[in-house]
């Protein structure tokens, strides 16, 4: 197992495209983590929000964040699958 992981690391180090993919994967993880935090914050704000306009604004933000997260998770999985092959 350790040898297999080591081989993969060496392969990634030598392949520029693969390196870029890893960097993207790591950035994706970071952004998704922040998006998740934002989503939690927005949900809390929604609970407290008074007024139709304000609620609609928060709901819109929530919907966008959800869609972005969904896209991100899908992409992350694609990169991971590609990496594992």
């Amino acid at each position, binding site marked *: 197992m350790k040898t297999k992981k080591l081989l993969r690391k060496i392969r990634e180090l030598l392949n520029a495209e693969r390196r870029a993919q890893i960097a*993207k994967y790591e950035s*994706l993880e970071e952004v998704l983590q*922040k*998006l998740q935090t934002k989503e939690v914050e927005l949900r809390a704000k929604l609970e407290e929000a008074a007024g139709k306009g304000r609620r609609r604004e928060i709901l*819109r933000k929530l*919907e966008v964040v959800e869609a*972005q997260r969904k896209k991100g998770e899908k992409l992350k999985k694609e990169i991971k699958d590609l990496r594992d092959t």
Partner: protein
Amino acid sequence: MTRRILLPTILLILAYGFWISPDFKQIASGVAIFLFGMLTMERGFRAFTGGALERLLRRTTDRLWKSVAVGAFTTTIMQSSSLVSVITISFLSAGLISLGAGIGVIFGANLGTTTGAWLVAGFGLKVKLSAYAMPLLVFGVVLIFQRSKLVHGIGYVLAGIGFLFLGIHHMKEGFEAFKEGIDLARYAVAGYPGLFLFVAIGILATVVMQSSHATLVLVITALAAHQVTYENALALAIGSNVGTTITAILGSLGSNIEGKRLAGAHLIFNVATGFIAIAGIAPLMSLVDGMSSSLGIAATDYTLKLAVFHTVFNTIGIVVMAPFVAPLVQTLERWLPTPAPVFEQPRYLNEASIDYADAAIEAARKETVRIYEKALELIIHGIGLRKRDVFSDAPLEQIDGAGGLFEEGIEEQYHQSIKSIYGSILQFISRAQTGMEPENAEELLAIRMAGRGLVEAIKGVKHLQGNLKVLIHSKNPEIRSAYEDIQRRIAHVLREVDSVRHAGEDRLAILSLNETKVAIKQEDILANENLDELVRRDLIPAETATSLINDYRYAYRICKRLIELGQVVFAVHDEALRDAQRSLSLDEDEIDSMAGHGVTR
């Protein structure tokens, strides 16, 4: 150096004068109150600019006689030839009227300003003006505190008239008291030396006070109190007519070449009229005597005769100069030629960076940000807002959309400060893309598209401005509110893009622009739905609805292009992170479906 010494010297002389003579103090305070009244009135009338005044001037200056009539009429109403000439300069600078028409307005303003002398000589000296001043001030101040822009403006005008009356009253009282102590008339100088001396004094007094009206009122009150002789008063009136051009000259300093030409025409006209009056002073006085007696004015009523003289010599000036308007225009165009437009040059695009992908991308991005900064002012002022309001923390609902001044000459400014740089960016990108890695070439392409979008946004503002600057002042609250909404929507997007710009390497900033995109789409859908409802309920005329449909489309496109630019040029520098963020960004279909969904929710 002279300027530095002048003000303290004047203040010292005034202070000394106040110390030795209470009468002088009263006269000077009368002048000060009078000038303050003029400033207050000007401020009041400015509240109406942007609407009625502009429309009136624009439509009624196509013929010389019309321009003269408009100049005379508006100056009579406003009692300030300076304000009319400064507004005319701004109109001319904006290309709304021709130089010939502008000259006509200035001629008319000279005639209109003579009504001031009539009012003061015929009415002001016979009635106790201070009795009217107090209620006017009280009503004026009460109205100033009102929120409506119109009422606020009326308040300033009323308070201004109140101060004018109060100022005249103090001047009159001062001269009356002065008469008891000193007889200034003893210093009268007869003949041509006196004429030239008092013309010079009249010029100087008007230059200092920045108002021929104030000089004339001072002269009339002094004349009524027999502190100046009739002949010397006439010379002072001639001098005030020449001196008043200083306001237009100062006003033209900040204007373009057309404004400077108009100020030149103003100076030539008033100096020529002055020379005519000096050269023909004896026949002019006989003419005034004859006209006064036929008007039933007593031979000893010198104040009214001064008003007659003022009107007569300005009318003669117009009659003499009117045939020379076209040659005057040509001469001024020759003397003050249009300077070759100075086009802005690119700052970051250089040969050294063209061969290196990262450097080339950064240079193109920075240059695009530079034109964005230039465009920002054009867009904000183009829609009648102020930069400090748009980028303040105040809620957008509190921005006074009708209070700002609309930037004129968008096309001209676009050509001067943006187009040439944008052209250089296009050229630079085309050259840099050759032989570049596909992903870098793609980045450059995105920057190029962002620049194109910005140009589209500026063009959109130009189209939008036509209706916006007129209909934002509409009497129909629905129309006004619709255009205020357009201003707010664009301001909202500008704020969002600006916050992304200053977010640095914030991981989520650029993604928030997706939400702004959904918001502007939803707002556009709702605005159009609301418009349908307004038309159905007959709350706005059909033709305005058509304009609004077009303007909503312009506004939406302006917003969209600005967001797209922000997404490209304010993206983070870290390539992997930028790539990740772009992968999460929502595409057009997703935005549209989300916006539609949000509206129905």
